[in-house]
């Protein structure tokens, strides 16, 4: 399936596929359109009440997006003719069609989408090029150097760090290098369990194709439907099932990257080396500032024989965190274990589809009764962990028992497979919800951090409270939705994910308010011992904190690498440094 014009099936001003979106139908019921997801075509009866109560909104007050892109608002391209000519001679596909340029001018930060919805177009790339293979990229980079053209690698376009924004101060011609045509699996090595792939491949395609041969990489970031292998490498991505398969830095065996200085790669595929600092670590997390990742050798695993979801209800968030900590201490974390706070738990409930029979609804009622009345859980404190086990059947069941036994020590009650599975399904549809909010005066975003275990609770509480307080001080009329979940466990800490959204009716400059609040929230994270980012990366959004995050010497080290590899700043997206 050629994704040459992927933008044809995807929204130009929102998340994901054009056919899939949330809406409130004429009866005011929530609904998810399309056929792609388990939730597609379902009615969500509680969504409206939750939405109105949580944000203080009314379905009467709409803020619809500009329906179509106004092509005339797109600035004319600034082309370097000889560069374009030579590309053509080299046989590299290129286009300066405005829609394609706009499509590649942004990631999915709130301010980027908000502007598009209002029909505002900022600086966009002047040209899009589609290399077909490693050698095409070599050619493009050579030409860019020759004509001093600015290159910005573009993979899946799911960045949430302003990494894809064209720097306003860039006066050269900006060329978006779209890797989507480099999407082949070049070989599978079953003896060493590795796969060699072109870096433009999209996560779900890689997984599907490997599955056909009975393998998987097991790397499943929440964005895997749209994000690319090269993007994962460039941002140090993390996958949901990293407990079994590892994060991207554990998965890659070999990387080939084209830089203005030439091609960088290792001479062999040895599983570990002591050859000075690992050059892969200059590449991973370089965020497109050094070159284009063209090919990657990755580890693969045989497909697991058995998968089982699960969920646990805890009386409160504190107990839940203690349980996750204990699971991490005993190093028995399942493929995935996530803990939602109470607000997110209620949010999840609001997305429950219409129950098909009286019997299920009766069962639901019973469960609720058992947990809140019989077990004495306070409905406004309880929280839920979702679990995913993988492996051979017997071991999974054993593992499951071990985890539930630990949970019981922290007051946790097993709450069924269904709740767990729905939790993970929500991961993929939740990004669509922001677009629904934006139809009704609600804006929001997610952000993440990693933090030592002993500070998880304090950080979560303080950041959530800081968000509430900052919104209030900045004139937000209704308390914001400020919630978090622990999404990954490590030996020495955890990854925490925050969602935050508010109703912006009555605010003169909602985006500004939003940006200030996010800024203050990040300050709070750093003050509480959290990292600048666990896996989203720095981009341009979090650049101001880099010096503090890695020290002046550390920043200088990175700068000197950049200076050597790309002295003329051909890869001029100005991320990170």
């Amino acid at each position, binding site marked *: 399936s050629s994704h040459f014009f992927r933008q044809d099936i995807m929204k130009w001003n929102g998340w994901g596929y054009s056919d899939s979106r949330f809406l409130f139908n004429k009866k005011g019921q929530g609904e998810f359109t399309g056929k792609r997801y388990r939730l597609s075509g379902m009615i969500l009866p509680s969504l409206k009440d939750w939405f109105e109560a949580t944000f203080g909104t009314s379905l009467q007050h709409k803020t619809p997006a500009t329906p179509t892109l106004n092509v005339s608002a797109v600035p004319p391209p600034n082309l370097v003719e000889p560069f374009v000519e030579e590309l053509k001679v080299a046989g590299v596909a290129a286009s300066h069609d405005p829609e394609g340029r706009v499509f590649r001018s942004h990631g999915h930060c709130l301010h980027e989408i908000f502007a598009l919805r209002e029909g505002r177009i900022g600086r966009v790339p002047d040209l899009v090029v589609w290399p077909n293979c490693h050698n095409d990229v070599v050619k493009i980079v050579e030409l860019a150097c020759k004509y001093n053209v600015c290159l910005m690698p573009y993979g899946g376009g799911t960045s949430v760090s302003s990494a894809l924004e064209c720097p306003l101060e860039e006066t050269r011609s900006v060329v978006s290098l779209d890797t989507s045509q480099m999407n082949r699996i070049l070989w599978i090595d079953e003896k060493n369990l590795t796969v060699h792939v072109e870096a433009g491949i999209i996560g779900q395609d890689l997984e599907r194709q490997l599955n056909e041969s009975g393998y998987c990489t097991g790397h499943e970031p929440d964005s895997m439907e749209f994000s690319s292998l090269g993007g994962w490498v460039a941002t140090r991505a993390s996958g949901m099932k990293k407990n079994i398969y590892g994060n991207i830095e554990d998965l890659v065996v070999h990387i080939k990257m084209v830089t203005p200085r030439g091609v960088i790669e290792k001479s062999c595929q040895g599983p570990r080396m002591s050859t000075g600092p690992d050059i892969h670590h200059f590449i991973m997390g370089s965020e497109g500032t050094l070159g284009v990742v063209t090919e990657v050798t990755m580890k693969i695993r045989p497909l697991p024989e058995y998968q089982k979801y699960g969920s646990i209800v805890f009386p409160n968030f504190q107990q839940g965190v203690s349980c996750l900590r204990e699971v991490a201490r005993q190093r028995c974390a399942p493929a995935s274990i996530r803990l939602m706070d109470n607000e997110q738990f209620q949010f999840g409930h609001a997305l429950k589809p219409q129950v098909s029979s009286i019997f299920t609804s009766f069962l639901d009622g019973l469960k609720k009764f058992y947990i809140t009345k019989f077990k004495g859980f306070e409905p406004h404190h309880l929280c839920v962990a979702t679990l995913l086990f993988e492996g051979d059947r017997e071991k999974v069941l054993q593992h499951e028992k071990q985890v539930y036994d630990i949970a019981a020590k922290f007051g946790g009650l097993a709450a069924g497979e269904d709740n767990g599975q729905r939790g993970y399904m929500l991961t993929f549809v939740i990004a669509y919800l922001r677009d629904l909010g934006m139809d009704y005066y609600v804006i929001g975003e997610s952000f993440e951090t990693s933090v030592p275990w002993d500070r998880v609770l*304090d950080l979560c*509480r303080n950041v959530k409270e*800081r968000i509430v307080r900052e919104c209030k001080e900045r004139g937000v009329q*209704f308390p914001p939705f400020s919630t978090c979940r622990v999404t990954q466990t490590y030996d020495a800490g955890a990854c925490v994910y925050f969602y935050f959204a508010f109703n912006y009716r009555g605010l003169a400059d909602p985006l500004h308010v939003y940006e200030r609040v996010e800024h203050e929230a990040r300050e709070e994270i750093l*003050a509480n011992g959290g990292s600048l980012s666990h896996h989203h990366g720095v981009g341009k959004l979090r650049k101001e904190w880099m010096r503090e995050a890695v020290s002046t010497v550390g920043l200088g080290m990175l700068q000197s690498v950049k200076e050597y590899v790309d002295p003329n700043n051909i890869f001029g997206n100005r991320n990170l440094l």
Partner: protein
Amino acid sequence: PWRPPSRHAAFSGSTTSPDLRHPGLKKRDELEDMLEERRRSSDARHALRCYAPAVYKGLAPREVSALRGAVLQSDALQHVIGQVSRRELVQEEAAHLLDEMAHRLRLGTVRFFAYVLSKVFKTLFRSVRVNEEGVQRLQQAIQDHPVVLLPSHRSYMDFLMMSYILYTYDLALPVIAAGMDFMSMKVVGEMLRMSGAFFIRRSFGGDKLYWAVFSEYVKTMLRTGYAPIEFFLEGTRSRTGKSLTPKTGLLNIVMEPFFKGEVFDIHLVPVSISYDRILEESLYARELLGVPKPKETTSGLLKARQILREDYGVMHVYFGHPVSVRSLAQGRVKRSQYNLVPRHIPQRPCLAAQALVGEAAFRLVRLQEQAMVLRPWTLVATLLLQNPDGMDLPVLEEQAAWLRRLALSFGAFLDWPDCKPCREVVGAGLALHKNLARVSGGRVRLAVAETPGVGQTAEELAFDRAVGVLSCASYRNQILHVFIRPALLSVALRTANSSRKDEVYTCFNFLWTVFSNEFILCPGASVQDFEEACYLLGKCCAVQESQQDIVMSEGGHATLAFLRALLDPFLQGYQVVCQYLCKETEENLRENKFVPAARNFALQLILAGTLKCYEALSSDLQKNALAALVQLEAVTKVKVGDQVTLKVNRRAASSLEDMLGTF
């Protein structure tokens, strides 16, 4: 749509705060008599009524025993225990220390106190007036954040009254840091423990374990929102009526959980408690003159029953606006400094944090001062002290009315009934304090003996008079904070070589430094204080300011003379201390011998008739003067073994004396 509004308590960070620059503009809450209800309905029912205070929103309910376990098992305490050898023994010792310290709050005891204190307070006081808006603010604060209550400390009544008020208004009862001296009163000590007091040893300087138990105990209660924590910034009861220089030890401890991110915020609530008459009035004067403080014993307390027969007028309790530690620290303390070491390991706070705590302590004491209700009698006492030969009643009344206007224009929180004629107001004060001032033949004077009584030595007479003067001064001292900055400026204006502002400021700054231990002057704020003084004196038309100069205005004489006279006893007293140190021949003067020797020196001057200022006998003044001399390096403290001796730089001390003489 927002949850109940939690007032944002920021005390506007910098010194340019409008409250400080224009104290007169400050809006103050109304005060209501809380005893009124008690006089109308049954005390027993009050004591037994349903008591269900609103508590901290994040509170996980905890029993006293669970609190004990949490402290003893805390990482912080275990860390310190691990550093000392023989873990088991130390663990036991820690448990012992904690048991000695910990409160055992019990509702039964609280109810008992509620009953008894209702009776006692109704007998002692005509009314107890409280700002109910402040109580409401506090109630909200308690639900939103861990709260620290910081009352001023003038009397033992203070913390009894605090708990009594909180109980009456259905607020969470505080746990109170109390000195160990109470423990010796067996029954009462235990009763206080059961009503929420916990006991700290007076000094435990190097005892790491004690420190760890103590600070972890306080922080655990704070972090969990267990109960509001109450302690006295001044460390002890002020015997002089002036606020004492704040101690920062406990404030450091309670602010740390915020710096370390263990709580979102902490609210500090200054509380100003003022009395028409202080129960300990003459006791304090005697203490200041070196008659030792009676040891707290239960039987001593029973003897104090005669106190119940007297009239102590009105008591005022003013709950200030909560001060958010988060707002205080905003942009000043980098909390990330704690990122690289586990938080249970004790870590010296950075300089910025230390500075912040010190500054906050002073500001909070100043907030206490500013909300202290002042009664007309304090003005009368001030005037009487300035006129030791007495005043004709009409003159006194006239001057009191004048002083009232001056005090109000300086922003004093003066409780002077508008509707009553001045004569009545002054008369009421004189009646209540008849033990201190005597009216005869239309003339008012301090109630001090003129001639020795039968069998009384000249020395005893001098001490007797001193008791009268110091008792009276303790009322004057209550209003000094209103006048202190303009008073320093008034003195500086007369002494400065010219009217150029910079020269006047030099003089002002010298005095400001010398008296920085005597009055609440925030460290490093001398410029702001100078500006404030200029502003206030300009406002009451006593001086005129131009770009370069500051001069007395035509009608400013009376105001400036009055203000100078306010400082006079202190200038004289400090001079006497300098004189003493210059004349002292003992090479290795032991620090603990300093006060008696200085007192004796002053006494001899008084007996010889060369000194009229009885306040020079006050040990408080002498200690403050010594601290100033140490600060100015005229005296150095040398530690030899257990003893601290004072090394006097005679030249410096004598030149300081000369300087003070010029003022």
